[in-house]
């Protein structure tokens, strides 16, 4: 039915697209589906991590111009097998985290609290919301207004680490002001 994708876009080639909304998108071709006119491009990660990447799924029906910057005719590498259960658990975890954060926001947590949670979450994954309180590793509890003196819990590396983070945030804000 559908023509082989290879005849339209070579995997690994650099492509630049312009959408009907005058948005410029550029990346490496990783896959193309003729039937749905979907083109998958691989771009540098928005977070800047070298081992991460962003995937753009572009609907060519709404693309006004496609330019092949660098065409590659090499045979694409074989596809590695994926651990489906691992992906499923990841999706579930991500959803739970997002919902828990949404609950906190609905509860009236301030923007500072949200940012603090994000900062702590970057270094300590075991971080969750409990009403308006931030619970870290089930040991440290940070109550509003989320200052160093609001940190309470079992003395240990977790508590000192959290206080250090809050202290740095305060210092940064003071310097910026």
């Amino acid at each position, binding site marked *: 039915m559908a023509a082989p994708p290879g005849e339209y876009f070579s995997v690994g080639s650099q492509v630049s697209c312009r959408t009907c909304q005058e948005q410029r998108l550029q990346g490496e071709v990783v896959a193309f589906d003729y039937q749905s006119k979907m083109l998958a491009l691989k771009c540098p990660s928005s977070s800047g991590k070298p081992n991460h990447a962003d995937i753009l799924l572009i609907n060519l029906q709404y693309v006004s111009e496609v330019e092949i910057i660098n065409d590659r005719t090499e045979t694409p590498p074989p596809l*590695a097998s994926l*651990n*489906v259960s691992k*992906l499923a658990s990841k999706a579930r975890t991500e959803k739970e985290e997002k*919902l828990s954060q949404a609950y906190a926001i609905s509860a009236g947590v301030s923007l500072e609290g949200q940012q603090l949670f994000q900062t702590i979450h970057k270094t300590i994954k075991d971080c969750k919301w409990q009403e308006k309180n931030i619970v870290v590793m089930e040991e440290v509890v940070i109550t509003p207004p989320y200052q160093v003196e609001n940190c309470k819990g079992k003395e240990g590396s977790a508590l000192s680490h959290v206080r250090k983070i809050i202290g740095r945030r305060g210092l940064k804000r003071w310097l910026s002001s």
Partner: protein
Amino acid sequence: MLKPQPPQQTSQPQQPPPTQQAVARRPPGGTSPPNGGLPGPLPATAAPPGPPTVVSPCLGPAAAAGSGLRRGAESILAAPAPQQHQERPGAVAIGSVRGQTTGKGPPQSPVFEGVYNNSRMLHFLTAVVGSTCDVKVKNGTTYEGIFKTLSSKFELAVDAVHRKASEPAGGPRREDIVDTMVFKPSDVLLVHFRNVDFNYATKDKFTDSAIAMNSKVNGEHKEKVLQRWEGGDSNSDDYDLESDMSNGWDPNEMFKFNEENYGVKTTYDSSLSSYTVPLEKDNSEEFRQRELRAAQLAREIESSPQYRLRIAMENDDGRTEEEKHSAVQRQGSGRESPSLVSREGKYIPLPQRVREGPRGGVRCSSSRGGRPGLSSLPPRGPHHLDNSSPGPGSEARGINGGPSRMSPKAQRPLRGGKTLSSPNNRPSGEASVPPTSAVGRMYPPRSPKSAAPAPVSASCPEPPIGSAVASSASIPVTSSVVDPGAGSISPASPKLSLAPTDVKELPTKEPSRSLEAQELARIAGKVPGLQNEQKRFQLEELRKFGAQFKLQPSSSSETGLDPFPSRILKEEAKGKEKEVDGLLTSDPMGSPVSSKAESILDKEDKVPLAAVAGSEGPEQLQPPCPSQTGSPPVGLIKGDDKEEGPVTEQVKKSTLNPNAKEFNPTKPLLSVNKSTSTPTSPGPRTHSTPSIPVLTAGQSGLYSPQYISYIPQIHMGPAVQAPQMYPYPVSNSVPGQQGKYRGAKGSLPPQRSDQHQPASAPPMMQAAAAAAGPPLVAATPYSSYIPYNPQQFPGQPAMMQPMAHYPSQPVFAPMLQSNPRMLTSGSHPQAIVSSSTPQYPSAEQPTPQALYATVHQSYPHHATQLHGHQPQPATTPTGSQPQSQHAAPSPVQHQAGQAPHLGSGQPQQNLYHPGALTGTPPSLPPGPSAQSPQSSFPQPAAVYAIHPHQQLPHGFTNMAHVTQAHVQTGVTAAPPPHPGAPHPPQVMLLHPPQGHGGPPQGAVPPSGVPALSASTPSPYPYIGHPQGEQPGQAPGFPGGADDRILCRVGRSHSRRRQGLAPGSVLCFPPSSLSCDPAAPLPTASPALSDPDCLLT
């Protein structure tokens, strides 16, 4: 306005089916195992043809799918008789679909459709599952969510979706998040997946944890069988080491070996003529004085401390490198060998060697008697006795003994001296006075002569030896008798030698002893010393000497042979000792092995203990929550125990698998948090219940009567169920429902949060806990059931429980239908209001009848399930086989993907079985009681949050009933996918549908009780009649349509106040209708009401 809105609504109902298809097909398209792949596509293909088959006959010409669906629904409602007919053809269609699927079974490739054929695209989209993505649609709006899956038609399913605002001041609020949203490819402009790690999901088969998981089968915790290590090579190794310890060969032996085996003759000259010049020995007094002077100087130099320090440093203070740098301390052998080595290996400076040369020369003259002294050491006793009578004789012998001791060191240079002195001896023989010296000198040449003739092999040397002996014998006698002056001279020389000999005796003793022990060849040299002594004393001794002389060669050969066997024996002994040591070391090696095995056993024992604790926790927690207020703290304590259990397990696992992935520890930690949150939830629940009545006195009044009304039903329900056989499977399914019920509370909290912020937080926790809890329960119990199948009684519940899990898939569809509508209604209130307007009046009237119908239908489905299961294991052994096949792969996948969860889940499973078996009766009463208060609790809260009017709570109760219907219909849908159920897709579906199923599960208990009581007589006839199965299946399909209708009705109620009045009416009819046995009548009534809507 109305025209554009309808297409949006129509798009919603279409979303759920494609999602199921995508989820079901993804595993086979991705990397599902062949077993899983086979059944996978079957249900996938079965699902999509369902709606089109139903729609196609009704609306063949319909161009728009959405309009077609609507018309189909309307037609069903308008014509009750046609509905019945359609139901039957629906069942037929299902049958045909099944047949098709079975036919398509062998050829898997044709089963895949659309994007599923594009392995590359499918691979990358599968890899980004779980990543945050931004979806930009045609109208320019951007939605952010977590990518979940895609369908064969490239429809994208995204979870936790919220509209992205132009000014993202903060994160989205709970109210702004839609649980699941499906996007059509034609509506999607751009999808941006952020921060994707392609290595995250790549299967690692070369890590310890991966290998361990792969080796596991059916959840069995098998440990690799350890084999005892045998040190078979230790013997040879020890022998080699022992041989290495040896001091090597004697240079002479090596020279002989090389000459004999390789024909190589050494050019080494012991006299070192090429390096030095021998001293010319004269009898002049000046020479003697110079020797004395040199000896004195040498003694002075050697006695100086500097000299001693230098010598000590060169000889490493008598310690070997092994002793210095090795951490291993050898026992006896170690102590002995290093000392020997050090002594033998000691470095003697050349100056000493050179000095020894001339000294050796001097000693040669003195050693004439010295050698016999050394050899005579053992016979000294008798000699001393003989000498005791002649005082001077003894002194002379002592003098002779001194230099003899020194001789061994100088043997080599002495030999050189001998060879040189031999020509001197010959000319000196002519002189009369020197005859004595000549005699002494004549002896040394004998040994070289004997050596020389061996290679020469000439007969000439033999006669000269004999003549020499004769001449020497006669000469010494005459000299001793005739010349007394010579005698006087001789005592002077020995006196001079006494001093140096005394000094040298001490150091020489030690080396002599070691030399004797190691170098047996020197002993042969000592033998000739004996001859000298005998000659001097008596002729008879000379004769004996001659006899001994003859025996010497044989004795020397024996002595030469001795050293080898002795050394070999020693080596063997040492080797044996080392072997023994090896055995001793092997014992401790064995002990650690046994200790490891014991530790493993301990761990295995501990795992079930933790499992027991884990399983006990939930069982005990559930009953106490509703019954007593004090139960929450008890539950909390138990929760703490749970935390400890898994933590210790994690620690052990970490120690066992140091290379474990970072991902593993994070999962167990999350699971631990979730488990802890579950026990904490009961506390806030109890607190929240009193808060609501306090806040609203009026509503509290309404709440109390509802609660009271439900309680009596619950009490009667279990009593009725207990005597029946079916109650057992029902009780088994209860825990699943309870899990779902928690999810229901989680969904309600957003409303509470609006009014009661402090109370809202706990519900959020509950929501998270519910989301986490259900998947564990769903996944783990299934694998645990398999091992219990052999048991007769538990076999039944095991069979039933998997059925309970299968419903999760079909539940997903109805939940999607309901949730998206409700949620989207929030986002588009105007559209929903306008759309609900036409449906509202029609929905009001048919609602109660529809509810009743669904309730009735749901119970019969349960009965059909039981009936279907019972005959399979008993009458159809082939049926049981496929079941086992299906069961086998699922646990493996669960374990592989979710090892840490399984670790915590397995204990629950193990505990669950004994609890269910032993605690079946007690579980029944607390289960429904726990559910009832939970279900009643959220209702008033929701009602209060939405509308203060009294009528609204009734409407909400209707909502609860509607959700109950959804859950029940989902359960009924389970049986068809069971035969060909794809385990991998179930894994994917189990989680989201359970979360969605929360609210409906919460409502299940009240509806379940009346349904059971109402249908008490009906299940019996179904079992008896085989035809009953068909009607059971048929109602399942139309149930879906009813669900959709009910969903719309529910929404309209929630939006319009006028609906409240009809809601109150609906509350009563279900209870009254439950008494009526006529089931088909209620289904007809809603259809009748529809034409009114159409007319309006």
